[in-house]
């Protein structure tokens, strides 16, 4: 039985939780293919998207997920909120809660914000990305996409390539993938791989070409230019020479390898255009599944919230 109050990260999800979420999402996927893409399941519920960082995919995905379940979705971004007037985040959250929302979806550039807010407000919180910490819905949609393509997760080999240090997607994926019995390898420039990250149960390498052989999934990360200090890389061109996934490199990988990217893509920097468009690329499938995962989480959080009250 799924009885979590918040989705703050994949670190606190058990194997059973993850399977329940993925199975539920599989069933929700069909709604988005109907002529009328809406069911009344969450009618009368209110979802607030509180986004303090730019986002197209995640915010739209949460909004669509809520609306397809008939919830009322309100979007608040940094520039339209009273934080411009100096209100602190906890006050903003408490004021929003006074209007009785049923779920708050939070994105912020500070690590740990989602968990901190969950200590102040009663309503369930979904972490939509907090700093360098976690981005659980991204990891869950990645797992769903892998499971859909491969039929299983147990024992699969995944290589994650790029700016590991600044990536919340990596951390959420490592926790979730280890829980599901997958093997994770991290590749990137030494300046972008945190020391002692092996303690999370992953292996580390620095050479992309050697590392993609035998992998079931290659996950390329975005070079997060907005989070870089200028000392990590000699130049973007050098990064691209060493770590861009090209079709020549791809020839060394297994024929049935899956190529992932959490988006947004810097074309030609971390992944070449022909690889993005190849049939091994699941980048847009990831986005499609994102809606189903977010529908499933809203459903599971709200239905179980009611169970607890009875």
């Amino acid at each position, binding site marked *: 039985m*799924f009885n979590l109050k918040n989705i703050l990260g994949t670190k606190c999800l058990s194997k059973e939780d993850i399977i329940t979420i993925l*199975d*539920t999402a*599989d*069933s*929700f996927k*069909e*709604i988005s293919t*109907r*002529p*009328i893409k*809406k*069911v*009344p*399941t969450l009618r009368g519920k209110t979802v607030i998207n509180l986004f303090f960082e730019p986002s197209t995919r995640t915010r739209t995905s949460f909004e669509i997920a809520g609306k397809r*379940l008939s919830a009322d979705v309100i979007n608040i971004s940094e520039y339209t909120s009273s934080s411009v007037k100096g209100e602190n985040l906890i006050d903003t959250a408490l004021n929003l809660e006074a209007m009785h929302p049923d779920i708050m979806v939070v994105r912020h550039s500070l690590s740990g914000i989602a968990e901190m807010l969950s200590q102040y407000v009663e309503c369930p919180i979904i972490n939509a990305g907090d700093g360098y910490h976690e981005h659980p819905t991204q990891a869950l949609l990645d797992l769903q996409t892998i499971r859909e393509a491969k039929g299983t997760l147990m024992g699969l080999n995944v290589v994650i390539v790029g700016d590991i240090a600044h990536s919340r997607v990596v951390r959420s994926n490592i926790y979730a993938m280890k829980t599901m019995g997958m093997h994770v390898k991290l590749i990137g420039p030494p300046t972008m791989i945190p020391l002692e990250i092996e303690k999370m149960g992953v292996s580390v390498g620095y050479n992309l070409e050697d590392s993609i052989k035998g992998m079931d999934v290659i996950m390329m990360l975005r070079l997060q230019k907005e989070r870089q200090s200028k000392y990590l890389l000699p130049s973007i061109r050098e990064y691209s020479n060493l770590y861009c996934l090209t079709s020549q490199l791809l020839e060394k990988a297994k024929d049935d390898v899956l190529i992932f990217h959490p988006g947004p893509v810097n074309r030609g920097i971390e992944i070449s255009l022909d690889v993005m468009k190849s049939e091994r690329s699941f980048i847009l499938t990831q986005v499609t599944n994102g809606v189903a995962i977010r529908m499933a989480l809203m*459903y*599971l959080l709200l*239905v*179980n919230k*009611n*169970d*607890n*009250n*009875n």
Partner: protein
Amino acid sequence: MKSVVFSEQDISRAVTRIAHEILEKNKGAKNLSLVGIRTRGVTLATRIKKSINDINGLDIDLGVLDITFYRDDLAIGKHNPVIEKTSIPFSLESKNVILIDDVIFTGRTIRAAIDALIDFGRPASIQLGVLIDRGHRELPIRPDYVGKNIPTSKTTRVQVLMKENDGKDEVCVINDLTIDNT
């Protein structure tokens, strides 16, 4: 206390009779579609489809419906949140849709199923077939095709077993005062 009220043979006869009644009422199988409500409604619908095929050789569409999204008791927490897949891979537009479930009781499942079907298109008609009608309706809903009417009290449980799901065909009535169906 448990008593068998419908045997394997009874079920098989009821399925054949319902298939005939469907064909009679709709003047043949043209423009017909079957939609089974998970889980045993789907099994039953599959058998009715086969029976119709045996009678007149027509292969009619069969859809699968999970009504969880449309339930009215999600908010009161009586419900098991496992959702199965819905699959209606054909158009319901202007079709005569026969909704199939194993047991009709309060009518709330059927209300949810009708809402769900209408979101898939505008059928010419929706008809309802059930194996067991046990009474105690809470909504103005009446089945068009019934395998057997079984008068029950509200505390009785009606258990439908089907070979494909449970290994044998049987309908039992279980009287147990600890069960609260309401």
